[in-house]
């Protein structure tokens, strides 16, 4: 089976104060279809940079990257943008919704970008928001939504084009525990539905729901653990009650 994400020797360097910092230092990574992978590590270890490289938000200085079997590390800015529409869905810690657009408009945006009709895009966006429990907030601007609601809108936006992979960068980093529980259930649903997920997180509860946990340090992946995939049975978090409510 072809890996959805396949990176070989991925390197990203920054010019620091008089020295070159290797934020990502020769990472090899393969994520299979339907697999959920968590990446943990201390702040500054390069995990967010890795995620940005995988989604084309930053360009690698060296290495190869394939998404869905297609070589993408040489794509231009425009080619990356077009590829991202259906290839990658992003979920950010800071949500990153467009302030001027309502929740449903934010969600339908990627669909409109790939050329869906406005009617179809709106129908699908509304359906997703309903499924994620924020249908009633569809007409509100982001500033009027709670953190948990914004993140669910962001997840809906990431999913609307059924991307090859959803890349989530600290998706619960800005949420309180209740909203974190909601997002955990949501990701569990996605995992169960076969959506390929790569999640960068500090939160062991989030990490524990993955099929595989990778740890990063100083720009390299220094460990990997195959989990049993049952996030809420994980010894990393006492979230059994959430598992009952959030199972697929």
């Amino acid at each position, binding site marked *: 089976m072809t890996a959805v994400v396949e990176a070989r020797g991925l390197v990203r360097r920054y010019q620091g104060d008089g020295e070159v910092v290797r934020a990502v230092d020769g990472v090899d990574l393969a994520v299979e279809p339907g697999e959920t992978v968590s990446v943990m590590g201390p702040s500054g270890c390069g995990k967010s940079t890795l995620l940005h490289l995988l989604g084309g938000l930053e360009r690698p200085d060296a290495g190869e990257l394939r998404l869905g079997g297609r070589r993408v590390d040489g794509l231009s800015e425009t080619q990356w943008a077009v590829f991202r529409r259906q290839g990658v869905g992003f979920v950010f810690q800071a949500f990153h919704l467009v302030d001027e657009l*309502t929740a449903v408009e934010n969600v339908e945006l990627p669909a*409109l970008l790939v050329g869906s009709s406005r009617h179809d895009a*709106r129908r699908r966006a509304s359906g997703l928001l309903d499924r994620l429990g924020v249908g009633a907030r569809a007409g509100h601007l982001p*500033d009027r939504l709670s953190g948990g609601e914004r993140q669910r809108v962001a997840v809906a936006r990431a999913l609307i084009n059924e991307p090859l992979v959803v890349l989530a960068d600290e998706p619960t980093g800005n949420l309180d525990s209740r909203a974190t529980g909601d997002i955990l259930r949501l990701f569990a649903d996605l995992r169960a539905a076969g959506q390929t997920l790569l999640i960068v997180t500090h939160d062991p509860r989030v990490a524990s729901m993955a099929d595989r946990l990778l740890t990063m340090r100083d720009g390299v992946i220094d460990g990997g653990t195959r989990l049993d995939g049952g996030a809420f049975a994980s010894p990393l978090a006492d979230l059994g009650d959430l598992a009952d409510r959030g199972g697929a």
Partner: protein
Amino acid sequence: MRSVVLLLRLAWRNVRRRPGQAVLLLVTLTIATGTFGVATSVYGSADEPWDRVWRATDGFHVGLTAYHPPDEPGDAELVADLRRRATALAASAPGVAAVGGPWTHLYGSVDIAGAPEDLTAEVRDSPRSAVDQPLVTDGRWLGAGGGVVLESGLASTLDLGAGDTITVQGRSFPVRGVAMTVSRGRFPLSRPAQVWVTAETAQAMRALGMTEEGFELQIRLDDPADAAAFVEDHRAAVSVDASSPVIAYLETWQQRRADSHSDIDIVAATLFAAGLLLALLTVATAAVLVAGRMAAQVHQIGTLKAVGVTPRQVVSVLLIEHLAIAALASAAGLGLGRVLAPRLAGVSLTVLGNPELPPLTWGRVATVCAVASATVVLGTVRPALRGTRHSTLRSLAAGPRPPRRPGPSSRLVAAPGLPLAGALGLRSARRRPARLLTSAAGLTLGVAMTVVAVALHASLDLLEVTPAEPGHAASATATDALYAQVRSIVVATAVLLLVLATVNAVVVAAFAARDTARNHAVLRAVGATPRQTTTALIVSQLGASAIAVALGIPLGFGLWGLMEGGDLPAVTPPAPALVALGAAVPIVFAAIVAVPARLMARRPVAPVLAHE
């Protein structure tokens, strides 16, 4: 005192941190103050030379002129009656100190560059008059041997001096001298041309066909300040029936002085108007800069407020900074005025001798400083106050204030037929309407002045192709030269306004690019291409040019309506030029705004998103 020092230090830091913005405001403001400085220096530069000639010639306090137009049948009886009445008035009226004349005026023509030009020959029969004895600048005054003395403007036009000859009524007369007077304006902007002749020469000219057209009588009073009252008291004594072809009027020396340098007045008035428009545009520039600054410094303002600096002190910092720039611009503008004004006034055809810049009085300095200060205060206070009104907590959370309601354009993203990038741009434009309107205001002025320049151009073209009336060729040429000077000022002003408006637009677009950087990074993260985000930013700014075209063209028509009339042929600005203007403004504007938009689109997405 300590807080004042703190505010001064903060203002100085701001200038040092943003030298580009300070320089932009300084340059814009200096263009406006410089235009005012030139205007205030040009205006009145002919007064002192006039006064000097007035004093040297024992110039009149009240003048009486009576004549019939050359193409009207003369009424010798009426003119003779007027002459008697005027002479009696001058002899008996209280307050009269001296009388000159009455001097007979003969009408004829002088040959200038092969074409006849209207000529008045004033007959002088005494060696020296107690009033209005022309000041000889070359050769000698009239005397034995006949000949003529040329008015200095006529001598300059013909490039003649003492010892040359002049052709009057087809016959040559020797030029005895060249002289100045204040009793009439200088040829060729004042016509007809004038010479002074003795009675003997006048006789010869009569024999050549010159006819008597009237006379002139000059009076000096005990007190020059009584001139207006004298005219008021004795107007009836020299009045003629309204139906009579004879024209008679009394004139004070002050009226003559005010009318004596029309070309300088026209140039100065044009410069004042240009300066006013430039100052208005500078208000827009200052407002744009301050609004952009407030948006960018919202975090710093929050920090200042958090440590106890009051909103008023925050505004004071900006005002100190901008008033310091205004002071610099005022000094530079006044300096420019002193440097440039002599060159402008030097081409005047009406100045008696060399123009002399009026002294730099406190009043003139205050005028320029007031314009500069008012400009920056108008442009600074409102946006600064708005910027400081955010709560401290809100200010500390950096980033532009997000909208609270979807607003009337909320359906735009889903509007059928509207490209997505365009729809996003329109939504973005709605977020900063004041900035858009400020940008539009500057462009509107530029477009309006361009319409005026186009209309003036067409009008002057019409004037130039219209053959001058017989006998007016030289004065028509001089008038054309004057209008060409006015045209240069109007065109230069239009260009300056458009350039400054464009700079404003670029600054606004740069601020817009900065404000929307996060949103556009998000758009790119979800699949929008750099071209789409560039288009969105251009569309968000394009409304300013649409407003400018929609308002600027009618405003230009309005301004032109105020200018045309008088000697300018009435024209409607040519439609093709207006269409070209209407099309060019948005296209050029879009091309310019595309620069910061493209720069923004080149920025990598991740660092922008990482800032939050």
